């Protein structure tokens, strides 16, 4: 239940605003001029707001689609990301969003059409080049789907082009829009995955791994392309057994003909984000194994990172017959 909703005056009569508000009949609605009056204020407590987040409905005016960081991609020559929402309903302990914004409130931009328009412009500008557009960088793409209906809108209106791939990255089970629509080779639904015991500890409020695998199975059974994102790879004493079991279970369950790609990313934090998150969870197990600072980035020791990625890659190669694309993700 969202207790209070802030709505920018400019979009108070927007059909999408009205549709979202109709889902929260008992919430207090406060009209504001700019979302920044609430969202960007300093001296807010992220952890406290996370206990009882508010919803802010706003209009995004620029930067609808941004260049993805170096090292973030699944094979295309150019990578962009877009976020119709900032922040996430889940509370994953390693998530960089905790250190990114001063507020944990959910900010939803209702002018979805502007995102698609900029995507179209970028496709025209980069004619002939392969491009991947990622959704789910500043939020989980599907977790708030019941409220936002963003994926539903996207699937009805996106630009189809052989050179273009769209990735919806998620941990959510809200896959209804995909189940209702015809599968497309341009769209990948990519799930972030951790071994079950680690997910229980660190993916707070997110669906269990078994349920995520069930959704993957459902999607591949309908012919949707899926991605497996082992990002971050988290170290503990039993990591080899845990990841072996996880990869085996997934590959046994899904139809691997629709496995588009697999990517691995180590647990890494830029210094400032590491300090913020570490202060939120003093003494937490997440930071207790083999952590070190290299070039202003906190991560596992180089040899640990390499061993984990190489071990998991081999497990995938052994199990999947077709030439599955495997990537390492190192955004910092």
């Amino acid at each position: 239940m969202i207790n209070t909703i802030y709505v920018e005056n400019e979009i108070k009569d927007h059909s999408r605003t009205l549709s979202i508000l109709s889902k929260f009949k008992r919430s207090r609605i406060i009209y504001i001029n700019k979302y920044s009056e609430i969202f960007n204020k300093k001296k807010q407590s992220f952890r406290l707001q996370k206990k009882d987040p508010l919803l802010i409905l706003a209009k995004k005016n620029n930067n609808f689609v941004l260049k993805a960081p170096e090292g973030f991609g699944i094979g295309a020559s150019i990578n962009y990301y877009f976020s119709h929402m900032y922040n996430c309903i889940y509370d994953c302990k390693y998530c960089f969003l905790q250190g990114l914004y001063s507020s944990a409130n959910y900010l939803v931009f209702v002018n979805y059409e502007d995102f698609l328009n900029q995507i179209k412009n970028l496709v025209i500008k980069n004619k002939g080049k392969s491009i991947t557009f990622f959704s789910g960088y500043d939020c989980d793409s599907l977790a708030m789907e019941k409220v936002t209906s963003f994926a539903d809108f996207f699937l009805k209106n996106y630009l189809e082009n052989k050179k273009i791939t769209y990735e919806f990255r998620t941990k959510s089970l809200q896959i209804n829009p995909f189940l209702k629509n015809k599968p497309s080779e341009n769209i990948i639904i990519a799930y972030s995955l951790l071994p079950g015991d680690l997910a229980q500890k660190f993916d707070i409020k997110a669906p269990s791994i078994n349920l995520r695998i069930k959704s993957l199975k459902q999607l591949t059974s309908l012919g949707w392309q899926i991605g497996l994102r082992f990002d971050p790879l988290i170290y503990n004493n039993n990591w080899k057994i845990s990841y072996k079991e996880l990869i085996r279970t997934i590959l046994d369950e899904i139809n691997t003909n629709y496995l588009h790609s697999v990517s691995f990313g180590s647990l890494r934090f830029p210094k400032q984000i590491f300090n913020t998150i570490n202060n939120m969870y003093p003494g937490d197990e997440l930071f207790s194994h083999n952590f070190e600072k290299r070039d202003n980035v906190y991560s596992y020791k180089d040899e640990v990172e390499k061993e984990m990625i190489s071990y998991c890659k081999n497990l995938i190669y052994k199990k999947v017959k077709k030439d599955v694309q495997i990537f390492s993700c190192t955004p910092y």
Partner: protein
Amino acid sequence: MEKLNSTDNSYICEYCFIVNNISEAQFFINRFNLKLKKKYNLFPIFSNQKKNIWLAINQDTISPTVTPIYLNNCANANEQTTWIFFSFSFLSNLNSPHFIIIDEIIDSSTQNKLYPSVSCLTKFEKKNALSKEQISQNQECITLKNIYEIYKTLEKLVNKALIFVTTLSMPEKYELSDIDNKTIKSEQNKYITEIMNLSDEMKITIFPFFYFFNFFKKIKEEFKFSVYEQNVLENLLKQFNPNDLKNNLKFIKKLKNGKQVINHLKQKLL
């Protein structure tokens, strides 16, 4: 004027209250046994003997933007101090007193707005308030004198989550002279206590590290520890989740000595 905070700043200021007049201050003065601190002469400033609870009364002759800054200095407040603005207000559509949290403040002259944080305040009724002189007749919206200026200053000084703008709204037929009424006192007592308790809970989430240090300090005051034991205790506490520590505090206080405390904490970590 005397120099503020020049000597005695060993105390920890936990709560600061700001009100507009002595009638609004009376409840706090009685409840916390606050005494007027005569050495502070710009505003009437009160504190209790432990100096962990402070109160300032706005003065018509001085800009209300000064009040939070002055009280902040007098009370030696820090980022963990809870700030509560309290005022009586009147509404025409009420039948009985209502305690309300303000989550939208509108400046009467400029129509500018400010939005006090409402994180974790789900149980309280919330409304907006106009910042202007109180008028006691035909009130359809809440008016809280000075609140825009006070909040604007406060939100720059302290953590937004620890500023509570509160009012006890009464039916307009009430007069300020009725504030001795038992119902009103009991409403104030109930809700102000609830806010103070809630803010204590919130601080554990906002400042987990400080919670360890405060906990460590409390335990050290109650039991004797050798220097070695103090180090062991500090390291043990760091491994606890703040909420687990809080749940253990009552049990720990019943223990006989420092060794038992350390053994108990070790057991809990197993």
